[in-house]
């Protein structure tokens, strides 16, 4: 039998194990509460796909009341600033061929570029040449065939960056294709989110589920700072329901013993301690870290990547004189995407959720990407909501 199928069967449909794990979690939680004095045990994930698994499989409904699973910044599409989208729309309207991933195609700007044009999709509808691609390779191949001046909208986290870097390294990019970097790094935003929870009157984050596929690149060592600097246990986890349950149980065990540590054995089938060194080297060679704007949140120092000087002929921002203005609040009225991104609000806390903002007509950015928390909750419902309802009925 092929391996992915086998993994799927053993990790996804393993209901006996899931039951066992959730029983263990229920048993351990009161002990952890008693020992640590925590009111709530808040566990944050940093990956849209983890949020997908958590919501899709109803994992929240398996948690004791005191264990709260929240989504942190884990979706690069949701945090791409409105100014970047506007710049891309302008380039498209000026006659450049614009390549984008499907996720960013419908992203709304905070104010329209021109009457009726508030996304790359609407720019295309009014005649601009916007093309959806699956990868940077596809954009390169296509740009070579037509030879017209083109720009690639380079989104993504650490997972996606190497796919760009390696192609710059191999010098296969045609002269007519430029690169607009909106690349972001997860660690600075994770630290930002942890600090926000520490600062506010809310309960602090007690445990972290580390992003599995960012970790394949940066290695599990990339998350050592959680236990070392913040005293928070962290588990690099896979994406099957049993992976998430194991991660929660491991965090509870660490909280109980009082020894915060990084556990990387959970997703060892693809994550190593050092990560993909070749990919890391390629990214370091091609990109430098910069300050960058996270939509609705503002500037986070050293949280972005942009092309180094030797590649400036491909840098759309430099070549086309695109000025980066200081950040201005860039969420549409009523939208709580920034709070949802930082895990201080659930999608259901937003007054627009499933009213003015739906997957077919997204108002805010977290409803656009398939991995945005709002879009995930819209599709699969929220077990949290059901639980609250049950509680109300009981009372």
């Amino acid at each position: 039998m092929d391996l992915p199928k086998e993994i799927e069967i053993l990790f996804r449909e393993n209901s006996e194990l899931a039951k066992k794990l959730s029983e263990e979690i229920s048993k351990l939680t009161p002990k952890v509460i008693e020992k640590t004095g925590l009111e709530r045990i808040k566990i944050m994930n940093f990956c849209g796909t983890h949020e997908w698994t958590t919501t899709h499989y109803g994992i929240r409904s398996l948690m004791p009341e005191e264990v709260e699973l929240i989504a942190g910044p884990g979706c690069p599409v949701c945090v791409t600033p409105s100014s970047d989208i506007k710049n891309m729309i302008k380039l498209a309207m000026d006659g450049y061929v614009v390549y984008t991933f499907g996720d960013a195609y419908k992203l709304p700007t905070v104010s329209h570029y021109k009457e009726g044009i508030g996304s790359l999709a609407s720019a295309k509808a009014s005649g601009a040449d916007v093309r959806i691609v699956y990868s940077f390779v596809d954009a390169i191949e296509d740009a070579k065939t037509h030879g017209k001046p083109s720009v690639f909208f380079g989104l993504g986290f650490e997972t996606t960056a190497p796919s760009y870097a390696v192609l710059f390294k191999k010098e296969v990019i045609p002269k007519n294709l430029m690169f607009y970097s909106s690349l972001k790094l997860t660690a600075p935003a994770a630290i930002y989110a942890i600090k926000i929870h520490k600062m506010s009157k809310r309960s602090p984050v007690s445990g972290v589920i580390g992003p599995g596929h960012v970790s394949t690149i940066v290695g599990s060592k990339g998350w050592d700072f959680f236990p070392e600097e913040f005293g928070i246990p962290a588990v690099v986890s896979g994406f099957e329901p049993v992976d998430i349950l194991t991660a929660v149980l491991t965090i509870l065990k660490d909280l109980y013993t009082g020894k915060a540590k990084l556990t990387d054995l959970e997703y060892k089938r693809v994550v190593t301690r050092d990560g993909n060194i070749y990919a890391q080297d390629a990214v370091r060679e091609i990109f430098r870290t910069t300050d960058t704007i996270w939509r609705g949140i503002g500037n986070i120092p050293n949280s972005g990547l942009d092309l180094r000087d030797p590649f400036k002929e491909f840098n759309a921002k430099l070549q086309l004189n695109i000025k980066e203005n200081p950040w201005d609040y860039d969420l549409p009225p009523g939208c709580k995407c920034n709070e949802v991104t930082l895990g201080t609000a659930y999608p259901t806390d937003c007054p627009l959720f499933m009213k003015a903002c739906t997957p077919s007509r997204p108002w805010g950015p977290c409803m656009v990407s398939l991995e945005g928390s709002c879009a995930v909750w819209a599709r699969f419902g929220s077990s949290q909501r059901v639980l609250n309802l049950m509680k109300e009925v009981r009372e």
Partner: protein
Amino acid sequence: MCVAFPGRVLEIYGDFGKVDFGNGTIKDNVLLSLVNVNVGDYVLVHAGYAIQVIDEVEARRTIEMWEEMNNGISNEKRKQDFYEAIGGKL
């Protein structure tokens, strides 16, 4: 956006290769140069490139570790159940 799909490498040509994602989905021109990979290996593919080779030994070890925690149904038994469900082993 970091979603990645597992697939089996069918062919390697230079930096690229052909990957079988199962269910009849085969993709050409998958960038493989960031990993050490051989034909037949399983890779995890994100945005058109392989981010990592799936470590079969580790995958099985994790499963076994969990099975130990589960200490009920063995790996072998689950496998048998599966073969039974699909009507035999090829």
